[in-house]
């Protein structure tokens, strides 16, 4: 079968919307099917792979950091980048304009800074493109 590539444009910031969870699930499912994935993260989504994210305890339940095992989006993105390091490949580009607005420069390894021109190029070269906007 011909090589397939999906481009996803993500907009939601972490910990705000179920859209982020669905998007990460979609990326995982695509990679498992051998489909290359391009992600263009813009607006708040550039914070999904922020290196400064830290898991926390839960004072309501009285659990420690270790007991809580609080998931971070940076850990999810990092795992997906590891799965998609070769074939299939996951390419993650953070919009530089959005990064600068938010000071969101400290990101995990594998995330590349780019511009809306990258989204155009990704979409032009992909089998399909899906935009997941905020509500």
């Amino acid at each position, binding site marked *: 079968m011909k090589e*397939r590539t*999906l481009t996803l444009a993500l907009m939601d910031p972490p910990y705000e919307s*179920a*859209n982020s969870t*669905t998007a990460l*699930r*979609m990326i995982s*499912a*695509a990679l*498992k*099917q051998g*489909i290359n994935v391009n992600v263009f993260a813009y607006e708040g989504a550039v914070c999904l792979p922020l290196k400064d994210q830290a898991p926390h305890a839960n004072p309501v339940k009285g659990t420690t950091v270790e007991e809580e095992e609080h998931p971070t989006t940076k850990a999810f993105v990092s795992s997906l980048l590891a799965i998609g390091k070769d074939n299939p490949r996951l390419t993650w580009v953070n919009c530089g304009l959005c990064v600068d607005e938010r000071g969101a420069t400290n990101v995990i390894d594998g995330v590349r800074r780019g511009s809306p021109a990258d989204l155009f190029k990704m979409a032009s070269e992909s*089998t*399909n*493109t*899906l*935009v*997941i*906007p905020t*509500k």
Partner: protein
Amino acid sequence: MTAYVFIESRDPFESRDTEFVEATAIAVKERGHDVTVFLVQNAVLAARKTTGRLNRLAAAGVTLLADDFSLRERGIKAEELSEGIQESAIDTLIDAISHANTKAIWH
């Protein structure tokens, strides 16, 4: 012929504009295209047979799929789904939108 995949994420009881997807999907189907509506997140609340919210789409021959993860999160079992709606893994959605000549629209 083009395939259209509408991904509905909104709860019809919260968002009035879910009617946009219903009307558009039916209109595209009537023009002879393959149309799938994949319900995800709070949109799966409309999939329960007690709501009858998707009857027009089912009657129009639109393929209706409900994300299994979203159903489980909300405690909705397969036997509670309206006729014509299938519980589906997200892999099915990925396969559906990763072919040429397919339009994928998120709402």
